[in-house]
């Protein structure tokens, strides 16, 4: 426990020496607070329709104006951060767990199972990501649940590959062989030796994939294939703005900005984390 | 003796290591004349590679020249501009590197590279350059030189590659040839062949050859004169025979005593020099070797030793050398 606190302190310290990483941390904290405190800080109900005041320019009451149904854009963007972060954190978290389990099974299981898994991981990774996502959406129908399933399906194989590779290396390392020679069970070896060594790189890769997932969520919602309206998502706000881009460009500008800032923030934080924790780790994220 | 082709005077070079400087080379002085082979010998970390890099003017970016100069045919290399320094490299001073496995670019054929290395030759067509390179490959004993020109480096054995890099170094007919550990990365039979080749080349080579090595045997086989280095300093210099049979510096004696080739009988314990290299960030006040020297007294530890001339050709950096 002590070492965990200590390493966290060290991470924060080395992040503070890297200005871009620090900026990333700042942006991420800002968006996290925005998402958590959405009901407290948003000036209006994001779903409240008021047709009289549609397409309003920014004013004191509506800082970022209103959309085609008279809904307050600022409130919708604040709630949009809630959508973006909850989906991306849940989905990458679940994908990480799936990848961890699959990778451990492939690394520790019998040889034939390993071969089957590797072929499967390679097949999915060799699909163009967007094609696979669209195929799954066609079958399951668009929606938040589908979005999470899609993200898990496209990212878990990559994580599983990473974990499998790490597992195979560690399995033949001297300290694990020594433990085995003393009759340790597989469970003990996994819990005591593999997990601590494998979780670090996985967390870094997950953090570097979060901006990609945020982008995918917004992109699919923009295509009307992700989060269903009226739930606010940066993607569907962007779409609303796009349809009225000639008459009222405020909406599109306002919806694009948080998306850019969030992906930049998470990317800088992820890079900073990688540099601080494991500079040798190769970039093998979703991109 | 004639004017030296290469003369190094009081050269001191350090490496910037953030808060302090590592003094890799301290007041090194050296001369090389046309037609002679000189050896620079010493253990790892004695500054001999820094010296070699300085001669060819390819020091690491963090190297700092603290003092001294290198005169090539009377002109100070450091006073030349970057372009003139660059033209000197390869054309007048060439180098054979230590590791033949990585000396050549892996994705270009040997021929491509040997032709490219002649870029300072003006008014010579590509096909003439090719012929020059092929002839040199034949000269260094490569069996089928025109085939070898078409090969990639990894397709040749280590010994062949080292022959090729010697050929490359001779391409521009340089006046100074620096061989940095030319045989260290090779196995014993290859080593013997390369030494044989270098000896053979001596006969018709006009310039000076400088062989940098930690291997006393290589020096004995090849060189006329030798400079012994310790902790960034030249500690003794002289003709090979004198140095081997009558070393005056205690370090030279210890080094020769440690050479397995000199053991006359079976010894249960290999001789070593006790102690470690001095800290090169803060070099000792007196003689660098004092801490490891069996003869050292108070004087050695506090006062910098003088150069003691033993004969016309031999001198040593030691308080005790005259005794």
């Amino acid at each position, binding site marked *: 426990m002590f070492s965990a606190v200590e390493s966290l302190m060290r991470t924060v310290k080395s992040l503070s020496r890297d200005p871009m990483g620090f900026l990333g941390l700042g942006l991420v904290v800002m968006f996290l607070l925005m998402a958590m405190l959405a009901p407290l800080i948003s000036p209006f109900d994001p779903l409240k329709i008021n047709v009289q005041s549609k397409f309003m320019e920014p004013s004191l009451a509506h800082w970022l104006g209103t959309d085609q149904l008279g809904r307050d854009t600022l409130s919708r963007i604040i709630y949009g951060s809630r959508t973006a972060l909850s989906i991306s954190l849940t989905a990458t978290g679940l994908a990480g767990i799936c990848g961890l389990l699959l990778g451990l099974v492939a690394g520790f299981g019998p040889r034939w199972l390993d071969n089957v898994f590797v072929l499967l991981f390679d097949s999915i990774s060799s699909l*163009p*990501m967007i094609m696979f996502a669209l195929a799954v959406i066609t079958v399951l129908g668009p929606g938040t649940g589908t979005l999470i399933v899609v993200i898990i399906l496209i990212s878990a194989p990559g994580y599983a590959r990473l974990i499998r590779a790490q597992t195979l290396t560690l399995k033949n390392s001297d300290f694990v062989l020594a433990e085995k020679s003393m009759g340790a069970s597989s469970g003990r070896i996994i819990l005591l030796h593999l997990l601590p060594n494998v979780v670090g790189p996985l967390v870094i890769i997950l953090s570097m994939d979060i901006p990609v997932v945020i982008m995918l969520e917004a992109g699919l919602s923009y*295509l009307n294939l992700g989060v269903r309206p009226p739930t606010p998502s940066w993607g569907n706000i962007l779409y609303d703005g796009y349809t009225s881009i000639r008459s009222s*460009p405020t909406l599109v*500008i306002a919806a694009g900005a948080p998306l850019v800032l969030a992906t930049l923030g998470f990317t800088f934080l992820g890079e900073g984390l990688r540099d601080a924790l494991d500079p040798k780790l190769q970039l093998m994220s979703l991109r | 003796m004639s004017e030296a082709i290469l003369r190094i005077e009081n050269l001191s070079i350090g490496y910037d290591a953030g808060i302090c400087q590592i003094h890799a080379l301290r007041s090194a002085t050296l001369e090389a004349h046309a037609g002679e082979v000189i050896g620079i010998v010493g253990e790892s970390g004695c500054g001999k590679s820094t010296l070699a890099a300085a001669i060819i003017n*390819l020091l690491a970016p963090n190297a700092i020249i603290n003092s001294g100069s290198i005169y090539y045919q009377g002109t100070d290399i450091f006073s030349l501009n970057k372009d003139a320094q660059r033209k000197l490299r390869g054309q007048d001073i060439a180098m054979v590197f230590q590791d033949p496995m*990585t000396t050549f670019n*892996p994705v270009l054929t040997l021929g491509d590279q040997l032709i*490219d290395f002649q870029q300072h030759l003006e008014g010579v067509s590509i096909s003439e350059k090719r012929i020059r390179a092929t002839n040199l490959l034949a000269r260094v004993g490569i069996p089928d030189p025109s085939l070898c020109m078409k090969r990639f480096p990894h397709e040749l054995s280590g010994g062949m590659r080292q022959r090729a890099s010697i050929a490359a170094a001779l391409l521009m007919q340089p006046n100074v040839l620096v061989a940095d550990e030319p045989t260290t990365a090779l196995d014993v039979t290859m080593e013997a062949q390369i030494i044989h080749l270098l000896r053979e080349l001596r006969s018709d080579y006009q310039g000076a050859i400088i062989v940098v090595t930690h291997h006393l045997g290589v020096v004995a086989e090849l060189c006329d004169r030798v400079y012994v280095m310790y902790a960034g300093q030249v500690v003794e210099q002289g003709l090979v025979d004198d140095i081997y049979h009558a070393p005056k510096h205690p370090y030279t004696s210890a080094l020769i005593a440690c050479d397995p080739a000199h053991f006359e009988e079976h010894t249960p314990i290999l001789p070593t020099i006790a102690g470690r290299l001095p800290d090169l960030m803060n070099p000792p006040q007196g003689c660098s070797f004092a801490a490891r020297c069996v003869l050292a007294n108070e004087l050695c530890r506090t006062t910098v030793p003088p150069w003691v001339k033993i004969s016309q050709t031999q001198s040593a950096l030691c308080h005790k050398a005259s005794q």
Partner: protein
Amino acid sequence: MLTYAIKRSLLALLILFVVMLAMYAMVFLVPGDPASIALGPRATPELKQQLIERMGLDQPILSQVYHFFYNAVTGDLGYDVWSKRPVLAEILEAFPYTFLLGVVALAWALILGVFLGCAAVIYRGTPMDRILGILSVSMISVPSFVVAIYALLIFAVWLRWLPAIGAGEIGDPWSQFKAIIMPAFAVGISWVGYLARMVRASMLEVMGANHIRTARAFGLSERRVVFKHALRVAIIPTISIVAVGFGSILSSAVFVETVFSRPGIGTLITSAVLKRNYPVVMGTVLVMTAFYLIVVTLADLLIARLDPRVRDVLRS
């Protein structure tokens, strides 16, 4: 080399087979039959029956799978549920637009990216290097469709320099050129950053190699050292990255084509997904996956040709 080529192609075929199987399985894993999903809840039974027969859903599964593969291999990908046109024809019509977009995007990204990467190497360790690094990361992480929409707003709506939608008049290269500028910019921008970064990393690795010291020891100029000796080695890993990255070019293309209402694979498949037009979605996914696998395989073969070390390992 030939054995390697055959081996790589067989592996690509195997992967394609698994992908097809997985996709086919997916349709049967979900509740509800594909015909009613495609037609929606308000379809008449006759219409449904018609579709079931046309899609061959009334036959046993094994024979369906067999027919699916047989047809796919012979180039018959079925018919568009709505327009009744052959799927393959629709794909072949859309493909050149997307291909052109990808090539133009990659071309400008390659030129600028390699240039910026080399610049970062020449200025390594200086503030310039740092600025280029931050610029690259920013370009990588900015979503392409946001770039597309902002570009559309600035250059088409406000400045009116470039057309907002479409791919230009057929037979009018100038209007086609104007129409591809913004899409290619949006698709390529993240690649500029990505390539700059890759080239910088692999160049720095190569510049430290002994053979670069050899080239310097022969007095070659810095420009010759960087461009003839270092870039030749450093460009090899970049090729495989570009090939693998074709998948992400396709992703950006899907979004960007929609933003600019530009015909192409992206527009085709998005509208098919929205209308649950199964045959079109399946066919497009299949063709694009096959194309992607071909690109990756060709890149591997190209690397084997460019790097004599790899070539020899394969020969033996």
